[in-house]
């Protein structure tokens, strides 16, 4: 008999899913992108796409997992039919490829948390830049990558109850930390300039497609919608669990944290160093977080304490997202017949080895972030296609509005999945590839360039060809009743 674990309560599911959604992208990408894309007008577009992209896909993922009770590949076979197994495998490969380099990012966060605790970041004016320069692309980054992977493995080892327990502690703490940091930032003298920068609209910007596509991209990347991660957690939903209300809660909760992070970062920048705002906002995710933020906190009264809180929040955000990616890949391997123990050790070893190039060479990291970040748009498209093959209205009435529903949704969701998600996904893929072409028109097809079209197409083509050829094998291997999901020892299971 198969034994399927379950979340102990709705709040366990909600907190674990919020932990998945709230990641470094909320803290280090959202403030930069909002500030450099028209401020208030960008935020309007960002809220629109929360409703047009993120929430419909989050609801779809919950519905897939609840209905199929299998990881991404098994769920696609169940929902979209055997011919879509390769699409589910694409979703799994994409999220796993991100997990491999995201362990490196999580390791960076842990290293800077340690440095903020020991005072290494405030020892001199250029301490943070010196640490970042010597640390990234070094064997020390490999060590922290290994630590991050070990931490995620230790949590996923205990199954969904381990994930639930960790999320129950880390996510409320993360919310409190971000609120404390935002309150501190808005009470700094001059902070109103940061608020003005974030919220002043540039209405003419709304006429440019770039703003809308950036807002859509931000929603696609930082809510976790379309990644397959929510689908994976939904496998462990209770039988009479709501779908739609939880979907809205996750989407709005995630974007609430993004707004807090935007206020925190921009108010701090404008209060402490308003003259360098353009340079800071343009410094990229890593430059903003690991070089500029420590320098700004160092100049703030009580900054050493707030710097620890900042890197603690960042580490919590990174680790809870890494855990969800680890569980996604583990779930697929369990569906294929492996025990959780074997799946975890195998996955940990493979992720560590394949992550070494990203830890040792920042260009490899940036390439992987580019290739699989755009790949997520394809994942979102595939989820919509599988739902269409199943019958979107049928999925809505039987699962989303089915047993346990607290919020019943109307035909708008059907329209969103059938029309809006595919249009948005294709628009995003085409736009990002055009941007890459324009940035390197001569070598745009070079498969070994870190940031170009050729690099994306080359890596996607290899994965897609392999998955298409393996489709039948995937169906054979991953069809059948849900496998035993129980943790190696301990953990409550529902027979």
């Amino acid at each position, binding site marked *: 008999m198969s034994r399927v674990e379950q979340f102990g309560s*709705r709040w366990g599911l*909600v907190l674990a899913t919020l932990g998945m959604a709230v990641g470094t992208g909320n803290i280090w990408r959202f403030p930069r992108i909002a500030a450099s894309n028209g*401020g*208030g007008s960008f*935020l*309007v577009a960002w*809220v629109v796409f*929360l409703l047009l992209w993120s929430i419909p896909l989050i609801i779809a993922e919950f519905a897939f997992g609840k209905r199929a009770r299998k990881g991404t590949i098994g769920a696609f076979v169940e929902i979209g039919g055997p011919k879509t197994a390769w699409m589910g495998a694409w979703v799994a490969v994409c999220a796993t490829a991100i997990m491999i380099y995201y362990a490196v990012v999580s390791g960076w966060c842990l290293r800077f948390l340690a440095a903020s605790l020991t005072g290494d970041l405030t020892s001199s004016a250029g301490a943070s830049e010196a640490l970042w320069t010597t640390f990234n692309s070094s064997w020390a980054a490999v060590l922290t990558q290994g630590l991050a992977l070990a931490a995620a493995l230790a949590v996923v080892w205990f199954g969904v109850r381990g994930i639930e327990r960790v999320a129950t502690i880390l996510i409320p703490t993360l919310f409190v930390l971000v609120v404390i940091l935002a309150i501190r930032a808005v009470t700094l003298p001059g902070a*109103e300039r940061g*608020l*003005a920068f*974030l*919220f*002043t*609209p540039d209405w003419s910007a709304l006429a440019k497609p770039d703003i809308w596509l950036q807002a859509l991209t931000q929603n696609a990347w930082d809510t976790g919608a379309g990644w397959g991660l929510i689908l994976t957690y939904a496998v462990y939903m209770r039988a009479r669990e*709501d779908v739609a*209300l*939880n979907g*809205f*809660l996750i989407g*709005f*909760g995630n*974007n*609430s944290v993004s*707004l807090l992070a935007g206020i925190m970062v921009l108010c701090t920048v404008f209060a402490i160093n308003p003259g360098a705002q353009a340079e800071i906002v343009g410094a990229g995710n890593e430059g903003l977080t690991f070089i500029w933020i420590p320098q700004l906190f160092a100049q703030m009264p009580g900054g050493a304490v707030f710097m620890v809180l900042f890197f603690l929040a960042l580490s919590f955000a990174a680790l809870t997202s890494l855990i969800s990616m680890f569980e996604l890949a583990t779930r697929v391997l369990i569906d294929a017949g492996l025990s959780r123990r074997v799946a975890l050790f195998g996955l940990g070893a493979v992720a560590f080895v394949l992550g070494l190039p990203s830890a040792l060479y920042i260009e490899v990291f940036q390439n992987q972030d580019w290739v699989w970040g755009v790949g997520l748009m394809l994942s979102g498209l595939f989820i919509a296609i599988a739902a269409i093959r199943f019958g979107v209205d049928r999925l809505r009435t039987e699962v989303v509005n089915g047993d346990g529903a*607290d*919020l019943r949704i109307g035909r708008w969701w059907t329209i969103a999945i059938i029309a809006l998600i595919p249009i948005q996904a294709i628009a995003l893929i085409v736009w990002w590839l055009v941007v890459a072409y324009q940035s390197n028109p001569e070598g745009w097809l070079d498969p070994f360039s870190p940031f170009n079209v050729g690099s994306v197409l080359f890596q996607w083509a290899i994965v897609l060809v392999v998955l298409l050829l393996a489709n039948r094998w995937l169906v054979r291997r991953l069809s059948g009743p849900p496998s035993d999901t129980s943790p190696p020892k301990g953990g409550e299971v529902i027979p």
Partner: protein
Amino acid sequence: MTTEAIVIMIVILTAVWGGFGFFLTRAILSERGKRHD
């Protein structure tokens, strides 16, 4: 800050944080209702 920026700030914060608060409250009430059932 200009009046326009203040209005946008209020609208965005109300939409996002208010939306989160609204759905959280509904979820809490639903859970309480289910427990009583």
